[in-house]
């Protein structure tokens, strides 16, 4: 395993790439891209067999980014682990005529599902997890959703389904950055206490600090050893805009791309 410091640096590196992409293309959704960067760094460094992904092998583990609007840091980690070409990503993101859509696109290697409309990833992840068991391929499925996204009823249909059918090869990661498009999640459709709700639905729950590398590793280790017959969820408590002082818990960066001086300061803070 890479040391904690190295993973921390990787997470900040993909934050820097994500912000540079958003800046260059004048695209939004930086805050939610930053909040999940530590999770992406750990997941792709330690738990995904990258060769199988590159070969699109049937038994590869699947990662679904259901909060597809936060694709910038997702593309960034795929480039860091050399699934995508970094130069191509930097040149093409959100540019006319390319496949680097500003919501994750399955036309790119390493992206299993195009998302953007919320509440779509988890049902598809359930289907994949079921298929993994039925076919004997026995791969694992990771699905990353936002906590605002948990407003969507389709997620709760899938939460019941996964427990009913004992999809213990499914790992749901809720990036609980506590904000959604028009404000704080608790003021819009409060889902607290989320760990207790999910446990009541029959899931094994790890309630972690999703911006703490050690906490994230211990949660993935739990899932790796996990064979309880229950689906697994990590409620990852994070900070929207994490890592850049003026972006943290700031709704502006759900919408605005960082300007020249903002990008400069952000990259200095992340260095």
């Amino acid at each position: 395993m890479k040391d904690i410091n190295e993973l921390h640096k990787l997470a900040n590196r993909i934050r820097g790439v994500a912000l540079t992409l958003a800046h260059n293309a004048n695209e939004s959704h930086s805050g939610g891209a930053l909040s999940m960067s530590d999770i992406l760094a750990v997941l792709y460094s330690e738990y995904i067999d990258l060769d199988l992904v590159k070969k699109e092998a049937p038994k590869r583990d699947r990662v679904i980014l259901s909060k597809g609007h936060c694709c910038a840091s997702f593309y960034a980690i795929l480039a860091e682990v050399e699934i995508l070409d970094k130069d191509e990503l930097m040149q093409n993101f959100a540019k006319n005529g390319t496949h680097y859509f500003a919501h994750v696109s399955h036309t790119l290697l390493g992206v299993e599902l195009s998302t953007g409309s919320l509440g779509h990833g988890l049902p598809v992840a359930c289907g994949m997890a079921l298929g993994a068991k039925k076919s004997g391929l026995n791969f694992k499925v990771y699905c990353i959703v936002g906590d605002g996204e948990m407003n969507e009823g389709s997620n709760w249909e899938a939460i019941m389904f996964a427990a009913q059918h004992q999809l213990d090869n499914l790992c749901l990661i809720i990036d609980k950055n506590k904000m959604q498009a028009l404000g704080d999640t608790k003021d819009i459709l409060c889902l607290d206490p989320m760990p207790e709700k999910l446990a009541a639905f029959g899931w094994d729950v790890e309630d972690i600090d999703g911006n703490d590398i050690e906490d994230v590793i211990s949660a993935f280790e739990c899932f790796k050893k996990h064979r309880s017959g229950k689906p697994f969820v990590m409620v990852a408590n994070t900070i929207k805009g994490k890592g850049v002082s003026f972006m943290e818990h700031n709704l502006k960066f759900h919408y605005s791309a960082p300007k020249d001086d903002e990008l400069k300061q952000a990259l200095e803070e992340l260095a």
Partner: protein
Amino acid sequence: MRTAFINQLLEEARHNERVFLLVGDLGYHVIEPFAAEFPDRFMNVGIAEQNMAGVAAGLAMTGYNVYIYSIGNFPTLRCFEQIRNDIAYHKANVKVVSVGAGYAYGSLGATHQATEEIGALRTLPNMVVATPGDPVEARAIATLSANYEGPMYIRLGKAGEKIVHEEEALSLKIGDIVALRKQDGNRTAVLACGNILASAKRQIEEEQLPYDLYSVPFVKPLNKEQLRAIVANYPDGLITIEEHQRSCGMGSAVVEQLNDMFAVGEIANYPKVRRVAIPDEFAEVVGNQEYLRKIEGLNL
């Protein structure tokens, strides 16, 4: 028709290990033989159609040919965005199967009347729309769909539809328009789709109408060459008939296709087309299928 379809699907599943059937807690007295013979490739996912469509897409992405089955609007309109994004956009190998086309569940009210879903589903890229008109066509489409890789919508009737085709088994290609009744000297062709096909045939026979009859088992795609040949043979034009809203169903698809062919010179004359369909309204009274067809004017 639904039993003919599911029984044929069961037959396909016997030699095709990729066939997987999901139902949305519906199918009493229809799906039991499939469930009993293939418990590993059958699942009642509960009353949760958005999840059913998403699960189907995910299962298909692991190699299965997944059928989702429920009544009329539930596996279609209720989860339309899942069908659009997760199934059609990804070209997932999913077959959306609805039962109770049109007014088949007429007395249950507007919620159970499937009268707009052809229109919705045929707008989706990558989607084939199949509308079998009798149990023979339903069986043929079950076989065809089991061997077809990609999204398809299959709109079934209910139970007890009359058999219209004389042959027991029919081999269909996607897009086929099938001639059912032809008589020398007829100058008008009727194109019918879905379970109103038998009723159109009966009316032509009983009233000795001078019309030839064609079944349209696929609203999308329509076979252009076959349509062009039909137009060329009937100087008095076409009548389309369906149990669906006029604005967006089979008749619309025919008119759109003819229009586009005329615009680029692929047909020399634009035929007269009378469209028999539901006139942009919900049925306001209780009625069984026959009754509602009558009050909505669904006859030739």
